[in-house]
């Protein structure tokens, strides 16, 4: 058996794995030396001789495999411990968010029960009033407010969804130009109805950002929808996308009513809205998404002239 193991060690030394991970290196083994004649998992610290002071830690697993005829084989797995730690932290974060999301979802679920009985009783009540009765109007207001409350609950849940995606996302390259072009098709009809024109200004370069597609779409929908709401017949919407240093910039300019200076200060505050049926969460969520992706959002506006929203994202590299 000792001979077999010696043979195996030689075999491993000749194998690609050995050359890839251990050639030109000196390694210290924390436990159970020598590694390659002992089964089990080991933590190996490798010091590269050609790179001063660089130390790498790997978890190494070795299993000896024997088939029915007694031929020996071996299975070696090598994993970077730093990456393992990162993965563990990421998993713990994701788990925490999933738990919180679950709690939030069950709260919302339970809140909808009393909302539903109130809604139903209000509808019954409304039926008992004649058309010109003021009380019929009041029950309508109460019903609308109740629906608004329910929308707030839905928005609250969707905020959890965003965070869930942030933690669970795989870094991907998304073409800003493609997303904007897709969205313009989506908004084309409502712009036509309002008599609004649009201009897209992109350079020739591919503009890539590393953000979840759903999140980028939500950010752009929130901003473009606000722009369209602010504009009227004959106004123009301009969307520019370009690279600046290591940033991707998107500028969305409308010729709408603009935002009052007082309101501009409160624009990212949750539940602040100037729209009659707004939840006041659109721009708040937008800012949250931008911040959590290492980006930024700034708004410049002049009352009566229009608004420009500046979005900045870290540029994604093709191989990211």
């Amino acid at each position, binding site marked *: 058996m000792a001979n077999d193991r010696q043979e195996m060690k030689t075999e491993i030394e000749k194998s690609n794995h050995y050359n890839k991970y251990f050639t030109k290196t000196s390694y210290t083994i924390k436990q159970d030396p020598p590694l390659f004649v002992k089964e089990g998992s080991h933590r190996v610290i490798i010091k590269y001789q050609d790179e001063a002071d660089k130390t790498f830690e790997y978890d190494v697993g070795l299993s000896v495999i024997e088939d029915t005829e007694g031929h020996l084989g071996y299975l070696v797995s090598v994993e970077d411990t730093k990456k393992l730690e990162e993965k563990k932290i990421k998993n713990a974060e994701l788990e925490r968010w999933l738990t919180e999301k679950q709690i939030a979802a069950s709260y919302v679920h339970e809140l909808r029960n009393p909302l539903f*009985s109130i809604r139903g009783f209000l509808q019954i009540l409304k039926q008992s009033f004649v058309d010109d009765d003021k009380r019929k109007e009041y029950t309508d207001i109460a019903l609308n407010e109740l629906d608004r409350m329910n929308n707030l609950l839905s928005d609250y849940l969707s905020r959890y969804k965003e965070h869930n995606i942030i933690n669970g996302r795989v870094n991907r390259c998304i073409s800003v130009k493609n997303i904007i072009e897709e969205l313009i098709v989506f908004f084309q009809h409502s712009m036509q109805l309002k008599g609004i024109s649009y201009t897209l200004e992109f350079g020739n370069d591919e503009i890539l950002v590393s953000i979840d597609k759903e999140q980028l779409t939500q950010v752009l929908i929130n901003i473009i929808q606000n722009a369209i709401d602010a504009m009227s017949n004959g106004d123009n919407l301009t969307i520019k996308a370009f690279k600046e240093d290591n940033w991707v910039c998107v500028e969305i300019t409308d010729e709408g009513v603009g935002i009052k200076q007082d309101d501009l200060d409160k624009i990212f505050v949750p539940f602040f809205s100037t729209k009659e049926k707004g939840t006041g969460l659109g721009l708040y969520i937008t800012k949250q998404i931008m911040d959590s992706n290492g980006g930024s959002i700034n708004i410049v506006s002049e009352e009566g002239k229009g608004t420009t929203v500046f979005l900045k994202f870290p540029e994604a590299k093709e191989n990211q």
Partner: protein
Amino acid sequence: MYKNTVLVVDDQPLINVMLKEVLSNSGFNTFVASNYIEAVEIAKTEQPDVAILDINLPDIDGIELLSKLKEINPDIKAIFISGSFDPQYAQKAADKGVLRYFIKPFDVFELANFLVKISSVDSASKGENKWQMIGKK
């Protein structure tokens, strides 16, 4: 023959009271239950044609309860109500023949109108007009 007996199963007593009020006034013979045992009891004695089921009852889930009710009456029609929407669950429910999936808080008259549509009950003279009458008094 009218198909006009409805069973409502929800663990929230006020929702049961409210739905019974709306559906009774829309011309349906309405029974309510707040759990599995009561639901099965009513299904046996009253032979409802339609069941309106909350999908998260304390002792049973909507799809399971529907299976139990179908053992008693294979032709029973079902509508699910819930405080949240789970697309996968909705798909399973649709596969089981559930006709509609209402998310609370929804328009109760939409539910009543849907029941009228699937039940051939003419509720116009009994239902909404009744409340109008009260209002005029």
